[in-house]
């Protein structure tokens, strides 16, 4: 339009947004550099507190972090949990992936022969409060304890009819299915490497 004042080019319009994006990006990078290690240490401490419980141990346990090459060729983190009498109590696997809204981080406990799931803990999730977030609560995650690793876990919305089924959190089917699929995948990927480590190593 002829009578409209000259608006100038894109840069003249948006230079403040560009400068702010750079400054704020720098500030966030600095925050992450300063606080990131502390956050990671907090998460690790929480993981170490939960790991013994996930393989059915109550008291002291020796937790050894291990790196394994999974079935799909990627490097994965896991923990070898040794009871105070020196016997192998089980393994705890780390799994993470997309939930309904954001990344979900899990710890999955399995028996030494990787035949049975012994526990599940949700380290981090940002699912819908009081809906999807309930996957982190005992009523949902305790269902995994005792399930066989021979067949994949299926999520149903009614009372489970077979031993490989779990019931989803009402109104949060996607969050529930995401967790079950992460568990299925990590067991599928890690079963063989862990069994090989156990028979070959110690």
């Amino acid at each position, binding site marked *: 339009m002829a009578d409209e004042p000259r608006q100038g080019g894109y840069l003249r*319009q948006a230079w403040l947004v560009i400068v702010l994006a750079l400054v704020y990006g720098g500030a966030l990078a600095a925050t992450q550099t300063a*606080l990131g290690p502390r956050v990671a240490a907090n998460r690790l401490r929480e993981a170490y507190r939960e790991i013994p419980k996930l393989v059915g141990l109550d008291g002291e346990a020796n937790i050894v972090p291990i790196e394994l090459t999974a079935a799909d060729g990627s490097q994965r983190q896991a923990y070898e949990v040794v009871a105070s009498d020196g016997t192998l109590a089980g393994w705890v696997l780390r799994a993470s992936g997309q939930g309904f809204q954001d990344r979900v981080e899990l710890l999955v406990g399995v028996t030494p022969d990787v035949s049975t799931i012994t526990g599940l803990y949700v380290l981090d999730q*940002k699912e819908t409060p009081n809906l999807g977030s309930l996957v982190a609560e005992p009523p949902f995650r305790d269902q995994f304890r005792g399930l066989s690793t021979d067949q994949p876990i299926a999520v149903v919305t009614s009372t489970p009819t077979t031993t490989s089924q779990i019931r989803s959190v009402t109104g949060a089917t996607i969050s529930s299915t995401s967790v079950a699929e992460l568990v299925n995948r990590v067991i599928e990927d890690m079963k063989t490497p862990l069994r090989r480590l156990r028979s070959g190593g110690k």
Partner: protein
Amino acid sequence: MSKTEPTALERFTNGILPENPIYRQFLGMCPTLAVTGAMKPAMTMAAATAFVLVSANVIISLMRGLLRPHLRILVFTLTIATFVTIADRFLEAYFYAMSKELGPYVPLIIVNCIIISRCEICASKQSVGVALADALGMSLGFALALASLATVREILGSGSWFGVTLLPAGWPHWTIMILSPGAFFTLGLLLALVNWVGRRRAEAAALRARIKG
């Protein structure tokens, strides 16, 4: 605008009660209902929101001469999101258990309308001193409102205040008070109380004026 803008002192006191973000403006209802089951999470939320509100108001006020009308909301959001992320990471680093308890509600401060409305109403138009006073007043008003809800809910629901047991062991904890329905009941009743007191005071003032005149 021909109307003169409020002074720093007016901005500060307005935020506490006359324009209280919760009781008068009904803004920020999500954290108000979600994290007031107990005093500790409520005050952590109030502190995090205050940090973001003060930082955003001051920075926006400093840049107010550079803002372009059609890009201002973008600049507000960018600024708010940055400070929310810093607050979220800080809580995760130094108050890990509280950070887990508050969950997504800290990142959700980004969409708390109290902050963007202060940027729009005050900080983008007035000087840094006024914007700072405004942010402090609104933060205090928000904190007081959260505290009022959390006090009622924690005492009735858990028999404690700030985690310190107040009521005798025989108190049957009204669990519903810490659950979502308790948040709605408490907010409704407190709103009614604030309105009732406000109306009584207005009537009394009108009566006094009539007697004098």
